[in-house]
């Protein structure tokens, strides 16, 4: 028989306001095995923990139930406390009477009744708990960063600087991501490429960093400290070890009609191309969909032009398998498609553009060489209207419910830069709210208004209609309480941003969570913002939520620190709550092996002693270092041989019985 102590936490008023904690403590004493109960204002405090420790020592407790918050908060706290006075930590169970009870109930009688039931279930479980000893597993001292934008680059650089190997896998032919496409950055107006490209070069030159560009992660198996990733290196049709990046092939290529992705499709590129001048790695790549050789079997001009003999039309995709201790997701974002925003006429009017397209127009390496010319007739626009919140903060199917966060600031930047360079241009910004929470952000926005004379209009645009060569913008000015009509030459839409389409697939591959908007979910919104809920998987940049460059870089470094903390360990403690097979019940049917997502189950031929009958049987064997304790096998096992330590079938049934009692 166990000697169990039950400890009920008030959590200030979080629990005590809705649960009569004294009643729960009194009820505990009626439960089988319970020899002691107590309530306390903050059980997680040092003195609260002291209460638990004292009771373990003085009452000779063999099991502990703490009725408090979610085990995700303080299970570890109380298990450590128990361990410090000699009790096996797995003899401690948490009954969650906060998230599961007090926070969701208003009525004290109901809340108390439910808290008693939850306590009773936990006591029933502890009665059947057994001491468990956690094993250890080795840590592979290398990290994988998925995505080579500023987030991935910063994370990789920080990990590498700490002395660990890092691989960056980038699906595009070059690293750099969205930041490479930007012209200037707020709030300092420094050139984006000037501050990004040194980091790109650093990453390429670092002896601890390996860049797999034009590559995608195909699958990931394993667990924290010991992941195995399959990386598919897409065929560039150019040998990386020979290409010098001279670019001669791109000049000779006769197929020049493909929309240039780097310039948001506003000019064209050749079929063999280098994305941009500072691309890293700077190797050419052939787009087979555009290449005449692939389409007709003829041409071959690039092959003949290349002195380095780097062109290889027969190159095939290659799959590489690498082991990693930690994985960082840094898959970034895209601007939403505007097909469903017909009121703004984006698809019909070339002079209705997105802000990212404007970045390219204003950039010296862009389609107009940095001159502000509108796409339709390459004339200088005299009147420009910016529309904020296009697709953000809405509830229609085409809208995103969230604020995209970066648009207010980059629009102020665009407006300011245009007024600086072309003072004869009138600039209007239609806004719902101007959001500038960031260091020097409000001051920046005020400069746009006060120093540069940008017209900020509080209201939204309802329609943009092409009319006699102008774009007639119908907007509202809510402060005037009027509808206003502006005949503009260029309309710039601050389109919402959304996670890259790869995020969903990668989250599934890594068995980590995403929210309804496909942003990856952090383990805790405040206290664990760069960790995912899956051990060993970390988040960096916009894949976790909209953020600007300074915030992305901070988070990228934070993710790196978490990775370094993991890689610094030679071994990590495993979860002892793993599956085990009862060899007398197992009939070797392989059901469990088929459902195991971790490949932890193998079959062995073993001599067993079945009530005096000795025979060799094929039975399931669990590799405890690989098993993650998900429990899939225990459900799949038809003969009930598979069980999960710490969550045995008996324990769970005892909990259910206690709840239904």
């Amino acid at each position, binding site marked *: 028989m166990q000697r169990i102590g039950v400890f009920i936490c008030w959590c200030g008023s979080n629990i005590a306001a809705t649960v009569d904690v004294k009643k729960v403590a009194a009820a505990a004493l009626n439960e089988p095995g319970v020899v002691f109960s107590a309530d306390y204002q903050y059980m997680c405090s040092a003195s609260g923990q002291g209460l638990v420790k004292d009771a373990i020592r003085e009452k000779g407790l063999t099991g502990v139930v703490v009725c408090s918050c979610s085990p995700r908060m303080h299970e570890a706290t109380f298990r450590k406390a128990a361990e410090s006075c000699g009790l096996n930590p797995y003899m401690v169970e948490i009954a969650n009477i906060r998230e599961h009870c007090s926070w969701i109930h208003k009525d004290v009688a109901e809340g108390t009744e439910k808290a008693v039931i939850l306590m009773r279930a936990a006591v029933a479980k502890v009665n059947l708990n057994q001491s468990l000893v956690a094993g250890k597993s080795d840590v592979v001292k290398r990290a994988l960063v998925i995505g080579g934008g500023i987030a991935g680059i910063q994370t990789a650089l920080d990990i590498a600087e700490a002395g660990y190997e890092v691989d960056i896998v980038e699906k595009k032919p070059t690293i750099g991501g969205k930041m490479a496409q930007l012209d200037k950055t707020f709030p300092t107006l420094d050139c984006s490429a000037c501050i990004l490209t040194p980091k790109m070069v650093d990453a390429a030159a670092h002896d601890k960093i390996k860049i797999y560009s034009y590559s995608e992660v195909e699958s990931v198996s394993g667990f924290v400290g010991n992941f195995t990733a399959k990386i598919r290196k897409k065929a560039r049709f150019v040998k990386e070890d020979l290409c010098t990046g001279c670019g001669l092939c791109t000049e000779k290529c006769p197929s020049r009609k493909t929309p240039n992705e780097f310039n948001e499709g506003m000019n064209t590129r050749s079929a063999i191309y280098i994305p941009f001048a500072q691309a890293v790695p700077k190797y050419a790549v052939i787009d087979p969909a555009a290449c005449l050789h692939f389409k007709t079997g003829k041409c071959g001009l690039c092959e003949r032009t290349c002195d380095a003999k780097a062109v290889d039309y027969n190159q095939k995709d290659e799959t590489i398998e690498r082991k990693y201790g930690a994985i960082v997701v840094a898959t970034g974002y895209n601007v939403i498609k505007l097909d469903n925003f*017909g009121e703004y*006429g984006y698809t019909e009017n070339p002079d209705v553009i997105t802000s990212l397209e404007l970045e390219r127009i204003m950039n010296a390496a862009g389609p107009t060489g940095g001159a502000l010319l509108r796409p339709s007739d390459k004339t200088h626009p005299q009147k420009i209207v910016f529309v904020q919140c296009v697709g953000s903060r809405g509830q229609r199917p085409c809208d995103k419910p969230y604020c995209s966060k970066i648009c207010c600031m980059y629009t102020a930047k665009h407006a300011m830069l245009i007024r600086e360079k072309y003072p004869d241009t009138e600039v209007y910004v239609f806004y719902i709210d101007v959001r500038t929470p960031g260091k020097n952000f409000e001051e920046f926005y005020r400069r746009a208004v006060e120093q540069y004379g940008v017209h900020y209009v509080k209201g939204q645009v309802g329609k*943009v209609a092409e009319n006699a060569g102008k774009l007639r913008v119908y907007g509202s000015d809510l402060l005037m309480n009027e509808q206003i009509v502006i005949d503009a030459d260029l309309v710039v839409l601050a389109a919402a941003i959304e996670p890259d389409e790869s995020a969903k697939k990668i989250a599934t591959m890594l068995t980590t969570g995403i929210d309804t908007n496909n942003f990856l979910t952090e383990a805790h919104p405040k206290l664990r913002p760069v960790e995912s809920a899956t051990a060993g998987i970390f988040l960096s940049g916009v894949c976790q939520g909209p953020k600007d460059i300074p915030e992305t870089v901070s988070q990228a470094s934070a993710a790196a620190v978490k990775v370094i903390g993991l890689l610094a360990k030679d071994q990590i403690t495993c979860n002892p709550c793993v599956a085990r097979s009862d060899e007398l019940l197992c009939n070797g049917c392989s059901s469990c092996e088929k459902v195991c997502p971790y490949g932890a189950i193998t079959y062995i031929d073993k001599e067993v002693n079945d009530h005096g009958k000795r025979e060799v049987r094929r039975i399931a064997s669990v590799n405890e270092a690989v098993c993650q304790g998900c429990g899939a096998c225990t459900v799949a096992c038809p003969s009930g041989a598979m069980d999960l330590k710490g969550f045995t079938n008996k324990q769970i049934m005892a909990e259910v019985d206690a709840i239904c009692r």
Partner: protein
Amino acid sequence: MKYSYYPGCTLKTKAKELDVYARKCAEKLGVELTEVDDWQCCGGVYTTSRDEIVTKLSSVRALNNAKERGQSLVTVCSACHNVIKRVNYDMANDAFVNAGANNYLQLATPYNGETKVIHFLELLRDEIGFENVKKAVVNPVKRRISAYYGCLLLRPGNVMAMDDPENPRIMEDFISAIGGTPVVSPYRNECCGAYLAVTDPAVPARHCGYITDSFKAKGAETVITACPLCMYNLKRNSGDLPVVYFSEILAEALGVK
């Protein structure tokens, strides 16, 4: 192909061309349209309030008649189409309206929005196929034509579900199918002024003014519409730019005019 057909009151009087040519074209295209039994006026406008039950009943009767025949219900007037499709949507999705209407009508089997409502343009696009319409054309209409949608065909987009309410193309595709050149104006889905024509003709005059100016500026030679009220408002304010029903121009193309 057999369908129930709801012509609507204006199509029997002031907008006879819209109805007559639609029937002729349907026949030419191998479609059999049978008028709904004892149909009544749809009311002209859909009343958006949920407690307006009576004004929705004539639509429910027509819808139920088509249901009993096991046919889809074809409309050709934009206004009737808007009213009937929206009432149908309510009968399927708004328990309050559904309960009120069924309680009043006491039908043998309650009507729950089972009938599919299709506009004649949808009939051409989805049931017959514009490619087959194109094959049936004997006199290609070699004109530059602007389609005027107005509001009723398209909005609310989630209920009408005919086309992108801001950037529609069904009528442009129709124009292409009959051999014309579509002339697209961003004002093709802006309101003509509607029933304010009765009390305050200056309002539709203003709206139709900039709408037809835009059509003219883009080089349209003809405007087509599916709504008798749009037709009335546009015609009075379009100057020398001809406005015709889409069914009439289709009849011309199919050689049945």
